[in-house]
Structure formats: structure tokens, C-alpha cells
């Protein structure tokens, strides 16, 4: 067995044993300093392609997961995962496509106030985090998505968000102009 194979084995073992996705730095800590980890990951990814288990990258972190087309075999004795409300789904999408984004901006897009519980649910799920305050009057808190969001929704990065390039090209992800928000919207000017 060549030393390359040794590295592939090592990366495979560490990723299998990990209970969370691992970054390159974390992998390197376990398999050794100078290792060509990217090459080993590429080899592994190719090896597992089409198998029952696949190697995936999510937000710079790597993990093994079961192939999507086998979902029906695995849901067997699992409780139906909790459904996201429509408000939470829209709010999550707005944050993911616009981040960082303030509550007022979310409200301007949805046309209604963001209920207190909506952001809480998303933060509790670990998909959304506070992302600092915007340096404008009132210093509103902004929100952004987390690495766990990418992991859960199977996204390599935010660039991988469905249709994000088209939406950006259409100008639909631009910061809303103030005049636009003023269109018969009471209460979200703050």
C-alpha cells in the first residue's frame, strides 16, 4: 500500500468516525500536518460516487452521508422531522439569499412583521445566527446563515443556493430602495 493510500485510509477513517462535518484544518490535525488532504478527499469522493454512502462538502466542511435516492429505506423508523412554517421558510430564504440582513429588511420583503418566534425557531435549529449590527442609525442587528444551514440543506456554499445567480442578475437581491419600501407599507420604515 502506498503512502497515498495510507492518507486516503486515514482521511476516510477520520471522516467516518467524526460526529460532525470536518474542515480541512480539523482533518489535518488528525491525519498529520503536511498531508495532501485535498487530493485524498478528491480520491475518496470519486471512490464513493454512486455508492450507498457519499462524501460531500458543505461550506468547506466534509462529511459522509447516505445517498439521497435511498431516503425511502432510511426514513423507516424515523419520526417525521418537524415542518417549517411558511413564515419561517420565507424568512430563512430571505436571510440565506440576502445575508446579512436586518429584521426590517426581512419585513420589507415579506410585507409583514416578523413574528418574534420565527427568528427564534431558525436560530434554535442552528441555521441562522446574529451577524453583527449594521452601522446605520439605530444600528440594527443583522442575521446570516450558519455552516449548519449549508450542511442541513446540502449546499456546498451560498453560491449553491437554488437560482441565486438568476435572482441576482434580475436585481431581485439588491438592497431594497427606500422608495420601494414606502409603497403602502406602514410601519417598516424603521
Amino acid at each position, binding site marked *: 500500500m502506498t503512502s497515498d493510500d495510507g492518507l486516503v485510509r486515514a482521511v476516510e477513517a477520520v471522516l467516518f*468516525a467524526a*460526529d460532525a462535518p470536518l474542515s480541512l484544518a480539523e482533518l489535518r490535525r488528525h491525519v498529520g500536518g503536511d498531508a495532501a488532504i485535498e487530493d485524498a478527499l478528491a480520491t475518496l469522493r470519486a471512490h464513493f460516487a454512486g455508492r450507498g454512502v457519499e462524501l460531500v462538502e458543505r461550506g468547506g466542511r466534509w*462529511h459522509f452521508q*447516505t445517498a439521497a435516492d435511498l*431516503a425511502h429505506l432510511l426514513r423507516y423508523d424515523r419520526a417525521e422531522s418537524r415542518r417549517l412554517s411558511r413564515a419561517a421558510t420565507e424568512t430563512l430564504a430571505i436571510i440565506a439569499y440576502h445575508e446579512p440582513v436586518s429584521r426590517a429588511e426581512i419585513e420589507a420583503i415579506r410585507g*409583514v412583521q416578523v413574528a418574534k418566534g420565527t427568528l427564534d425557531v431558525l436560530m434554535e435549529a442552528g441555521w441562522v445566527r446574529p451577524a453583527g449590527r449594521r452601522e446605520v442609525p439605530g444600528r440594527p442587528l443583522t442575521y446570516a446563515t450558519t455552516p449548519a444551514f449549508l450542511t442541513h440543506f446540502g449546499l456546498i456554499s451560498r453560491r449553491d443556493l437554488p437560482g441565486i445567480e438568476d435572482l441576482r442578475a434580475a436585481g431581485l437581491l439588491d438592497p431594497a430602495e427606500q422608495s420601494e419600501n414606502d409603497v403602502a407599507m406602514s410601519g417598516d420604515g424603521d
Partner: protein
Amino acid sequence: MPDHPDQLVLDLNGWEGPLDLLLTLARAQKVDLRAISILALTEQYLRHITQARAMKLEVAADYLVMAAWLAYLKSALLLPRDPDAEPDPEELALLLQRRLLRLAAMREAGARLVARDRLGRDVFARGAPEGLRTVRRTAYEADLYDLIAAYGRISARTRPVMHIVAHRDVMTLEEAVARVSTQLGMELDWTALERFLPDGGSADYRRSALASSFVAALELARQGRVVLRQQGPFAPLYLRVPT
């Protein structure tokens, strides 16, 4: 979806605000949102609000605000164009259309997002990972000064303990006083201090006996039970019972 959107919107509580209602009405036009007739949409919206109020349904304030704004927009769009009108009603219509597009885009993005193969719902991570352990190895810090200082501290603290010796090869002062007093009774003339010392014993013991006997002699002299005589410094010391 009910068959007629007209019926549906009577229940305004089912809508997430006027924008949501507008978007649903716009979708009912069954054309691309970009090709939507804002005027037709406006009329539809106003009609529903009027219907709702005719049926004495509670209509939330933000729906009424939107209705008032749309009524203004409608009249501005219908009236002969005033080139100086500010803001331009066509532009306002475009802004409204843009808001609808934006909401529609995010609504669809959300739907696509939650329909993805989600970890823990459609795809699964390893069920029983061995787990990676980070073993924290403690590197203890201490320098030579700490070590020396600690030893000094112990020494100071335990000095009395350290001085306990296994056997005491000495003659105590009490012993010497008793010894010298007894022997003085038997000697009537001047007698050298050395004569009072015991024979034998270790060198340490003899030295101790000499020292103790000397002090005993001084003590007895102080009590007036003995007189001392010495010719000069370091000369032999003589003792005698006082006459």
C-alpha cells in the same frame, strides 16, 4: 385553492398581509408577474376589500392602508398624464410590481430550499460515529524559583519537626545543678569545675556536661550556695561552699 379567487379572499385572516394577498391575486391573472396589469390587480384588490367590508368582516388596518394607496395609484394611472406629477404613477406601479416579484422569488426559493435533500430527513450522517476525541494534555508550568521557594517554605514551616532527634545525648541544666550541689557538700576546699564532670560518656555528652555544669555553677553562685574563683581569662574555674 378554491375555484374562484373571489371567494377565497373574503377570509382575510388567511393571508399574511396585503402583499401576500396581492401576490395571490396577481398569480390568478395567470401571466408572468413581469407582464402583470397593475391596474387590473388594483381593481381586484379594492373589490375584495369592499366586499369584505360589505359583509361586515373585520379588515385589518394594513389592508386598508394598502387599499387607500392602491385607490390613489389607480386614479393616478387613469387620469390624463401630468408630466410634472411627483411621483410618477407609472414608476409607483413598477415599484409595486418589483415588490411582488421579490416576494414571489423568496417564496419560491424557500420552497426549493425545504424540498432539497435535507440531512436528517432525506440523507443521513453516520448513525453511530465513534467520534473524534480531543485529548487535552496539560502542560504544567512551574519554574526553578517556584521550586526553591516551595522548599524554603516547607523548611520554615516544619523546622521544629525537623529538629526532633532520636536520642538526647546531653546533660540538662537541672541534672547539672543537682549534681554540682550534691558533690559540693563533699568537697570543703576549692575544687576545679572539671572535677564535677562525670567519667565516660560520649564526647558530645562530656561537652554538654561541661557547659551545663558551668551554668549550674553560675546559678548556684547567684543563689549564694557556692563561691567561684578564677585567676584570669580562660584559667581553671574553682568552686567552694561559702564559709
